């Protein structure tokens, strides 16, 4: 099987408009969730909205603007802009918002006079993230958008890895993107999982999630392709697995059945053992059920001393983008040998019996894991490594 290198990273979220800004926010433990500015609402749930963001693609869906912005950073950091046409490049991206026409203004107008606004339809058709990026960059590899709710970004990265393993492309642009949506804001509120306070992943007194928006993009390529281009990749994607709870439409399996299967399969696919994993970037939404389930599985598989954190305290829950952003943050943790604290955490939950990182932490391990749990019961796991 070919080694799969990670040669480029691009991120945009409330924590920062690129990798450097994001790391600065992590270092300073800065966060500023607010009530939404992008739409009018009577609800009081806090969100992590991307501010001071300008894009040359203002005619496109905001999800696409965020996605292209992060993709540009990822491609630049991989030094890939010029080489794209000479390679078989696939695109696999996750989203939740961009695959639906959940446009309240469009639908209000339709209900009022029965008229369809064709410009909104065109924008919806052109808003499929993977198809949009493949068309924009004139790419010739496989193209797929994943709509697996909150694990979409992680699954998209895993599929890119599988494409490369099966020689379906030389390079894969992977990750996820999602904008804040009034519809999702009301929907998560209706499920009683949103919080009007800044989220507190894994904390005893956590009250729920804060939605966010953003994009996280990775460039994957066969190591020999990267080396041929003169790159010296340090980071690798070593394993991926996904498993269903087969339990409930919105709640995770209480014993973490699917997550346990996915973690064990991902370890097997990477040839690693639990003790090899130096840290986990957890899904950590700050909902009662998610954090309890994840904590239970971490404790059972990795033992009580496992280092883990949720970065959603900095970004909010960015839905389809979360897997992409968190995979990128996992890579940065390995690259820099440094992790921020799990912001928002104060008191250990006796139901979990584990604490995430309570302070910024140096590390020198070579392997790390990123987990995603989705609405619908899908659980997905990535394992990254670094050569030291």
């Amino acid at each position, binding site marked *: 099987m070919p080694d799969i290198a990670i040669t480029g990273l691009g991120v945009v979220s409330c924590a920062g408009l690129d990798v450097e800004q994001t790391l600065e926010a992590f270092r300073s433990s800065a966060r500023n969730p607010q009530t939404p500015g992008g739409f009018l609402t009577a609800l009081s749930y806090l969100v992590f909205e991307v501010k001071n963001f300008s894009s040359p693609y203002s005619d496109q869906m905001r999800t696409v603007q965020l996605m292209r912005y992060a993709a540009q950073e990822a491609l630049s950091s991989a030094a890939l802009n010029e080489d794209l046409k000479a390679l078989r490049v696939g695109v696999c991206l996750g989203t939740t918002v961009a695959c*639906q026409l959940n446009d309240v203004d469009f639908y*209000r107008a339709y209900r009022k006079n029965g008229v369809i606004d064709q410009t909104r339809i065109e924008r919806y058709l052109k808003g499929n993230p993977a198809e949009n990026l493949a068309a924009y960059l004139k790419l010739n590899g496989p193209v797929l958008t994943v709509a697996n709710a909150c694990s979409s970004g992680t699954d998209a990265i895993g599929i890119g890895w*599988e494409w490369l393993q099966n020689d379906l492309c030389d390079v894969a642009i992977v990750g996820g993107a999602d904008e804040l949506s009034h519809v999702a804001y009301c929907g998560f509120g209706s499920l009683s999982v949103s919080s009007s306070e800044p989220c507190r992943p894994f904390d005893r007194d956590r009250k729920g999630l804060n939605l966010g928006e953003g994009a996280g993009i990775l460039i994957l390529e066969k190591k020999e392709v990267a080396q041929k281009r003169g790159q010296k990749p340090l980071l690798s994607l070593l394993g991926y697995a996904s498993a269903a709870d087969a339990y409930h439409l919105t709640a995770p399996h209480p014993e973490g059945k699917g997550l346990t299967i996915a973690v064990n399969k991902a370890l097997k696919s990477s040839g690693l053992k639990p003790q090899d994993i130096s840290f986990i970037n957890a899904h950590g939404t700050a909902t009662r059920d998610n954090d309890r389930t994840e904590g239970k599985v971490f404790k059972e598989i990795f033992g009580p001393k496992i280092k883990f954190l949720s970065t959603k305290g900095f970004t909010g829950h960015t839905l389809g983008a979360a897997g992409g952003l968190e995979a990128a943050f996992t890579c940065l943790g390995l690259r820099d040998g440094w992790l921020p604290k799990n912001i928002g955490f104060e008191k250990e939950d006796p139901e979990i019996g584990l604490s995430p990182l309570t302070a910024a932490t140096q590390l020198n391990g070579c392997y790390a894991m990123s987990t995603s749990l989705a609405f*619908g019961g899908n659980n997905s796991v990535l394992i990254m490594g670094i050569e030291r």
Partner: protein
Amino acid sequence: MNVLGAGLVNSESGDCLAGRVIPGQLRRADRFCKMAICAARGALDAAQVKGEEQGIGVIMATAFGPHPTTFKFLDNILDYKENEVSPTLFSHSVHNAALSYIAAEFQINGPTLTVTGFDGVFCTAFQLANAWLDRQTCKYVLLGAAEERGPVFDKVFDIVEGSAFFLLGQGPRPVYLENKAKGPVQAGQEKRGSMVAALNLYRAYDKGLSR
């Protein structure tokens, strides 16, 4: 790769769900989910494979997803206060709700993946299913497509409604999967939804069986 079994529900001759037995635990499922569950059951039954058998992965392609449910949820937002909207409608408005039901109904613990697009999405899903079998990620792949019609999109698109699922497994590759030039999973007419390509595969499979 071989197609071990296939299931189809479509609306070519009336309501595709008429006369089908929907178990009580699926009472909250919307039409999109029910179509997909019925087609998936057909594929598993035809192949005589039980869902709980180890090693089944599921991939479902859809262009438009459960848009009538999405619009019903928007009706909620427009007609009621924001804190009075239905959580049931919201949880069914996401594209992957159907696979959640399928995993729970057939006790499948393998990967469940919903993919979406307007340009050859079923074909790319088929390619990925092949990769999963080649790499032995799964012993079987339950590959499907589902589309639903509704009043808003009927004004714009000519969606082919229904769902088709195929249980794919290792085995001699049948003739109808070898015809790459005019293959059963060609892209095309994707603005009509993913069922166009899935129906091509179903018809080829059906013909292949009856030859």
